């Protein structure tokens, strides 16, 4: 993936940096990422697609529309590969998407919309969905394994409350884990079904935050799991992801409902983790007092 600074992207498009920033405000395209120093970083593929579209366009809007159509072709080709049960073509399609976008945007703009489209078109009981979900989970797990070790001094535990990898929420949960790992967060992913030995796992990992993700498991099972974690490492913030509540909101108990999009959820988690309240690892003495409140908050959101 090749990135361009604002001045480089502006030079490629033969416009001034101010014009490029004006396009971003008015049209939302090209959409830059931010460097650690908060500078804009444009993907070369987007800028090149726009440059070509500008040659034949009659307005900036129509050129951007054409460039976007070209970029959307990746999602269509991935849908075609997955419903044809063609793993190699699917790998090639996501590679093509990665040539133009970052990993996060490839997942958010190509992989997850593709899965949504397949589940909508064929239902989650279909063979097409089974193949697509398995391929996507495999790809996301591979991407997590290939990510460099975490650099932030923060960690989270993800309690997976989805049914299995065929659950519609499962790819979103894996995507959230991938985004968090890529953001330098240490992530421990556990099934929210099992509480045996959960204290040992939590003590080794020392999480700053717990995420309950997925809506398949019932409230009592999830509450028992959250209680076991809290008993082991003490009170800590709890976030809920894709568990039935669509609107992000925060309760007085400290439970936060994350947005349903994986990227938005990762940003919300980063905000939570970087706040002073979360940065300090909670003491074990607060465990018993906070546990009941946390269980209530988990139940309250179902």
């Amino acid at each position, binding site marked *: 993936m090749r990135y361009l600074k604002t001045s480089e992207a502006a030079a490629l498009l033969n416009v001034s940096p101010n*014009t490029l920033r004006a396009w971003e405000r008015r*049209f939302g395209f090209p959409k830059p990422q931010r460097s650690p120093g908060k500078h804009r970083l444009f993907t070369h593929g987007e800028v090149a697609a726009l440059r070509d579209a500008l*040659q034949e366009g*009659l*307005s*900036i809007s129509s050129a951007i529309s054409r460039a976007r159509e070209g970029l959307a072709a990746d999602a269509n080709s991935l849908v075609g590969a997955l419903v044809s049960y063609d793993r190699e073509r699917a790998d090639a399609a996501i590679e093509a998407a990665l040539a133009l976008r970052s990993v996060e945007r490839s997942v958010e703009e190509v992989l997850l919309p593709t899965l949504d489209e397949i589940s909508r078109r064929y239902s989650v009981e279909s063979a097409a969905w089974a193949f697509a979900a398995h391929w996507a989970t495999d790809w996301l797990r591979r991407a997590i394994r290939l990510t460099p070790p975490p650099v932030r001094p923060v960690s989270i535990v993800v309690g997976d409350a989805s049914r299995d990898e065929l659950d519609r929420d499962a790819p979103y949960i894996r995507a959230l884990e991938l985004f968090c790992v890529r953001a330098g967060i240490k992530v421990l992913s556990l099934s929210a079904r099992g509480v045996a030995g959960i204290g040992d796992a939590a003590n080794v990992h020392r999480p700053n935050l717990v995420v309950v993700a997925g809506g398949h498991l019932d409230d009592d099972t999830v509450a028992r799991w959250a209680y076991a974690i809290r008993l082991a490492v003490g009170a800590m913030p709890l976030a809920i992801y894709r568990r039935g509540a669509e609107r992000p909101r925060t309760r007085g108990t400290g439970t936060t409902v994350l947005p349903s999009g994986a990227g938005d959820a990762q940003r919300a988690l980063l905000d939570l983790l970087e706040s002073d309240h979360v940065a300090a690892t909670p003491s074990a003495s607060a465990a018993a007092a906070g546990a009941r409140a946390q269980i209530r908050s988990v139940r309250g959101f179902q």
Partner: protein
Amino acid sequence: MVNRTAHGRPALRLVVAPELEPAPPSVWFCSHCGARSSTSGKLVKPPVSRVCGACGLGLLIEAAEDVAPRTGDAFLVLDRALSVCAVSHGAEQLLATREPDVVNRHVTDLLMPADAEEEAGENLSVAVAWAARGDSATRTTVVRPANTFGIRLTARIAPCGPQRAALVVLE
């Protein structure tokens, strides 16, 4: 014209072309603000960058000087499928819309014919289709905003480009 070589075989021969009618003078203008690119008025060369240097929010389009809009004019650019390709800042204000919201939509989402007695050649869609094909004749028709009754606007329709398209200037 077929000529014969010394060996009697047919061969093509260059002939002087008849005098062509000089093309009307053209100008480059911005698809957003309508500002005309600065030229001396004699020979208009294609601009180095197609992005408007004045506002940065439009592409430079070429049209005949007598039909091209001026800065602040309300105008649209439509393709031969009658889809909206560009909406100027003046047209955005006149029609209460934003270009990114209406681009690629059909022209009737923005404008409707408003003259019940117009001739076939002055019909909005026919005039746009002819202009988008490159017919150099300038046509006028009467239109109204699609969502508003009681307002009549004169639309001046002429070809523009590149790519070939129809310029609809609202007066």
